[in-house]
């Protein structure tokens, strides 16, 4: 426990001192929420738009839709970029060697990383909700506990995916490239950029297999007061296991 707290404190300090990760992870989703809201507006009349037999905005205004959806984008950025870049960079520089020589357990390292990611995410979600509420009078989360559970499950799922990336990808540059690619691909097809209703049906089928798609609805449902989306939560838990187990197995210290 003492080790976990010390590791978490050190990681918190490092996160604060690393401007890029803060800027991208928090500013990009916020910026996208503001821009997409500016494009599609915050009109209750749009709530019932139908395209391809689906409600385009899931029965809420575009701003509400993007506010909750963009919180999921923070999770994806943390899991697909911050985590693998951090860990593979640690490996490349010999920091992992140093940690292992001092009996730092891998579980402590990972849980500290996940804790920092979760704290960042909470801050990001608060900022997102607050800015949308201030700027567009957007809906605040209707079911805070439901949103928190979705965020926690999402953090573990994306944390596991990030860990898998860090375990299989060689260096930090490779992690950066692959992480960025995965991030933008997921961002585009998961409903966080164009709503899924306007996607061509082939792409919509693909997006069913994308973890971010499930995280978006897992967060949106309680946020809008639609109840908990158990099926999405279960899929995310599945991703956590399918990515996490081989990641732990394949993790290398040097």
């Amino acid at each position: 426990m003492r080790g976990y707290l010390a590791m978490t404190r050190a990681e918190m300090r490092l996160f604060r001192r690393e401007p890029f990760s803060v800027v991208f992870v928090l500013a990009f989703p916020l910026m996208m929420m503001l821009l997409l809201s500016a494009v599609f507006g915050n009109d209750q009349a749009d709530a019932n738009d139908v395209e391809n037999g689906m409600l385009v905005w899931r029965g809420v205004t575009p701003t509400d839709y993007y506010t909750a959806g963009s919180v999921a984008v923070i999770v994806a950025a943390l899991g697909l970029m911050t985590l693998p870049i951090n860990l593979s960079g640690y490996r490349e520089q010999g920091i992992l060697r140093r940690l292992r020589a001092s009996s730092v357990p891998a579980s402590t390292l990972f849980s500290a990383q996940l804790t920092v990611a979760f704290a960042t995410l909470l801050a990001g979600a608060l900022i997102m909700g607050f800015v949308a509420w201030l700027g567009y009078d957007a809906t605040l989360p209707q079911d805070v506990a439901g949103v928190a559970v979705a965020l926690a499950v999402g953090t573990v799922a994306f944390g596991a995916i990030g860990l898998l990336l860090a375990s299989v990808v060689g260096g930090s540059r490779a992690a950066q490239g692959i992480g960025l690619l995965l991030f933008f691909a997921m961002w585009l097809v998961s409903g966080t950029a164009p709503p899924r209703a306007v996607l061509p049906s082939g792409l919509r089928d693909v997006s069913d297999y994308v973890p971010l798609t499930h995280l978006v609805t897992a967060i949106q449902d309680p946020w809008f007061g639609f109840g908990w989306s158990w099926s999405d939560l279960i899929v995310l838990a599945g991703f956590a296991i399918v990515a996490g187990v081989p990641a732990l197995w394949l993790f290398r210290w040097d």
Partner: protein
Amino acid sequence: MASMISVDGLHKAYGSTIAVDDVSFSVEEGEIFGVLGPNGAGKTTTVECIQGLRSVDRGTIRALGFDPTTEAGELRQRIGSQLQDSALPGRLRVAESIELFSAFARNPVDIDQLLSQWRLEEQRDQPFASLSGGQRQRLFIALAFVNSPELVFLDELTQGLDPQARRATWELIREIRYHGTTVVLVTHFMDEAEQLCDRLAVVDRGRLIALDTPQGLVDGLGLSSIVRFSTSESDLSWIERLDVVDSVTREGDSVEVRGSGGVLALVAAELVAHGIVPVDLRVDRPTLEDAFLALTGRAIRS
């Protein structure tokens, strides 16, 4: 008293490259044990196997009674490591990093004491990335002592340190040994091995080729001393007739006498007896470097 470390028939290969080939030795409590050899000789691999940082292909290792392949966790609580090629996050500060590592130690030492011992007080709030090579090295050595270890491994301890800092570091290592910590020192510096180590394992191309005290290594090879002086006297055949003398060569007035044992005293006595009192009489005794050259057939830095 059981050995602190015993290594028996250690063998380790990376693919088809044999890094460590059938190496056996033991390290006793309270000594500074040196592992000396050129780069790529297998020194680091050997000590990393002992610390449980690398898997072992063949052979048995016991360190503080633990098997590093199965009891690495217990072992690492009791040893300190200063590794080659390791780093800390660039933005982590000196005191913060010591604080971090001490959180994983069962018996952590006082952070301020550690900082002052390794002359890092002024850098305590400096981030790792801004430290000089010597300061980084001192921080890594400090981290090796953060858990009050019974046994420390120092891999290329004075790499990147200036001559003054090297000597200061040697002094501290002697002090640490004085307080009862056993030290395993990996080095390719002859002077460091000679100055610091009680015993030396000389490693070359993965094999242990000699194991003795630094002086024992030099003496055991029966290498010759060279006595040098100048004289205008042309006939020196009486020197050549001395038992301890192997050869005499001269170039103008400069004379070189090769021999073993007490060659200096005997040559000097003969010179005086013949009325020759050279002011530049001196002797070059064989050094560890000469012994290393004789053992491996090549210089360490080649």
